[in-house]
Every structure is written in structure tokens, then in C-alpha cells.
């Protein structure tokens, strides 16, 4: 350990279509960068070691754990977060609408990660069944244990999108 100041890295990313550049130290995770530097606090951090899935965001259209990727690694990437799901005028996406209709949100902490996971899943496998949804969501923990409504909402969203 030294007393010298920690080196700052400039990170340029596009988040939900909007370009951002901010500086951070190398050890900043992408999720912390989104929250602390870009003030996009919709992405949540639960466990910070890749188990809970709350911090899931899309990087170049792929769902990843925001706590298991450094912000510097996202330099130049296109990121999508929960803030980008609704339309500009606030109209909910089909997925968000389904979650609202099915009361698939309890405390809401895990919800951003679950929705961002499902964006990829429903895009790649729109004909997914209940078993597939449960498997796809196995990497997202809901400690309210509200899985039944989450699965119902995901299936309804899949139907709406098809």
C-alpha cells in the first residue's frame, strides 16, 4: 500500500442510448460506476459477489452481473439498465406492464436484475415455457420469495411479446 493517489481511469459508455464519460478508479465495478458516477441508481447491488443477480445489466446486449465486471472493462460498450426499459413518456414496456399487472414486485430490490435478465431471455427465446423461465431466473434471488408471481409475469410478458 502506498500513499500515492489512486490512478483514475476515464470510462466512456453509452447507457440507454445516452453517452457518458466519467472517471473512476480501476477497482470500481460497473454496477458501482453506474450508481455512484452516473447516478443511475436503478441498478441494485445485493451480495457483490455474483450470487444474487440484483445488479444484472445488459452490456452489448448480453445480461451480465454488474458486480463481476470492472467499469474500465465496459469502456466503449453499450449498456442497458432498468432506467432504459420504459418509453421516454414513461409508458411501461410489455415486460414492466406484466410485472405490474401480476404484482410480481414485493420489496422491489431484486426487480431490476430480474427484468434485465428477462430482456435477454425473452429476446432470445420468446417461446420459453415455465420450466425455462424458472431455469433462466435461477441466477436471480428474490428474498421476498415472490417467485410465483414473477414467473407468471414473465410468462405473460412472453405471450405479449410473441
Amino acid at each position: 500500500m502506498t500513499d500515492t493517489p489512486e490512478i483514475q481511469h476515464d470510462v466512456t459508455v453509452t447507457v440507454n442510448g445516452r453517452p457518458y464519460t466519467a472517471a473512476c478508479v480501476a477497482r470500481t465495478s460497473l454496477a458501482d460506476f453506474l450508481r455512484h458516477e452516473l447516478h443511475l441508481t436503478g441498478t441494485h447491488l445485493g451480495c457483490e459477489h455474483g450470487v444474487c443477480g440484483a445488479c444484472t445489466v445488459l452490456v452489448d446486449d448480453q445480461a451480465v452481473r454488474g458486480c463481476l465486471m470492472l467499469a474500465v472493462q465496459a469502456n466503449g460498450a453499450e449498456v442497458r439498465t432498468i432506467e432504459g426499459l420504459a418509453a421516454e413518456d414513461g409508458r411501461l414496456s410489455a415486460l414492466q406492464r406484466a410485472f405490474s399487472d401480476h404484482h410480481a414486485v414485493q420489496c422491489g430490490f431484486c426487480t431490476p436484475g430480474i427484468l434485465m435478465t428477462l430482456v435477454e431471455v425473452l429476446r432470445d427465446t420468446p417461446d420459453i415455457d415455465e420450466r425455462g423461465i424458472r431455469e433462466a431466473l435461477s441466477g436471480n434471488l428474490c428474498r421476498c420469495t415472490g417467485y410465483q408471481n414473477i414467473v407468471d409475469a414473465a410468462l405473460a410478458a412472453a405471450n405479449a411479446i410473441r
Partner: protein
Amino acid sequence: MKPGRFSYHAPQTVDEALELLSTRDNAKVLAGGQSLMAMLNLRYAMPDDVVDLNGVRGLDDITVTEQDIRFGAMARQRAIERDAAVAQAAPIFRDALGYVGHLQTRNRGTIGGSLCHLDPAAELVALCMLYDATITIAGKEREKHLPMSKFPAFYMTPNVEPDEIVVGFTLPRWHGVHGHGFFEFARRHGDFAVIAAGTLMELDSGGLIRRCAIVIGGAGASPLRLTGAEDMLLGQRPDADALTAAAAIAGEIDAMEDNVYSSDYRRHLARVLTGRALAQAAERAI
């Protein structure tokens, strides 16, 4: 938690990465980050320098030839899972990768990272053992090729020097009609297996077993090839009696225990899952 402080390096070539490693005392290579990032966050790993391979071009190729299957170390698990040529040449990869973490971790996680982390129950480690993979390791002086049986040094530690980098894997293809089976038990889908069993089985024109490979993951520090059972099955018809007898050998292995699972329970799982994997391989081999 948050990682401790480190210097970040993003080399563009393997040579640059090797130069960085050879001049730093306490450096870590960062591949997909699905193990190392967690260890950094928990401060189990406290490197002074992190050498990120994600910017090195040409390390993520997946190549299937007539002879073998080659994975660059940075081939993402998700890319392997979705690769049509791999699915055709070695469909057991798709079966096993379905158990590897979750789609969010497979999108980033790499085969090289998984092998170098060398978790005793990691599915890709078991498959490399099943296929007798050769590991290509780059060093400043020379490139070396290590058979998978020599790759694990001890618990979660591969035979790779601190200034070397694993760059690729070569798996000889199985030719002829063969089947595959892969099963594992974990408490939650996507967790590391308590026990995993994988098998490959080739039958001759008379329906007798010409070649067989069996691997058990999660029992010891590294995956175990069940050579006794493999040899016993040669020349046999893959009927219930033969497969049950082979699976019984899996039930007699040395198995570790932890605060949740006893050795006996692991042996029980090894026997049951090997039996299922053999039956599935036999069914698919016809």
C-alpha cells in the same frame, strides 16, 4: 465488499500480457471475472496488478476440425454453449454448460478462467478430463503443452507458473457413433455441483462397448477418471447389469466431505449419477 486497490493493465497481445506478468510480483490474470471478481470483491484475492485478457485479440476462437475441438482460453462459456459445430462434434458441452452458473455468468465466464480457477466441481474442468484435453500454456521463453491429467497441481491450483498464461485447449474428437451423458446434483440450479458425472460411450457394429470414458467431478480436488469402470465395460453389452456394475465402482471412490455433505453421501451420488449418465450415453450411442 469492494476490491482492494490494484493497478489495471489491458494488454492487446499475449506477449504484452506475458511481459507484464514477468515484471510484477503479485499480479493476477483476469479472464471472464466470474470467479476472480468475486474473490477481489471479498478480498480473498489482493493482487497489486490485474492483467486483463479481454482486450487480447484472437484468444476466443472456437475451432472444430476433423481431428479435434479447439477452444481459445477466452472463449465465453455462452459462446461454446451456442456453437453449432461444438454441439455437433461434442454435444455433451451443451448438456454440461446448462449446469454452469447462470446465463449472466456464462455470458462473461470463459473456459480458460474456469480451468485456471479449478474448482473441484467445475463442469468444464470435468469435461477436459473426460476428453483428455491438452492445455496450451504460453510463457516468455516457450509455449508448453500439458495433458489434462497433469494440469491440476493441487486443490484449486493449476500447474501454471505465475508468469505463464493458459491460451487454449485441444480436445481430440471421438469418432464413430457414440453417446454422451451428463448429470449432476446441486442444491440450486447453477451452483457448483456436489457431484457431477459425465460419460462418453462408443459401441461397435455388434452393439458392444468399444470405448468408454467416465468422469466424476466434486469428489476430490480435481475430477476423477473412473478407469476401472471404463476398462470393465469394454466389450460388454450396455445392458442394465453391466452399467449397474460399472456405477457401483463410482460408489467406492474416495470422496471428500464438508459441513453439509458426508463422504458417504457423495459416494451415493457418484454411483447414482454415474449410472444415469451411462444409461443416457448408451441410449444415445445406438
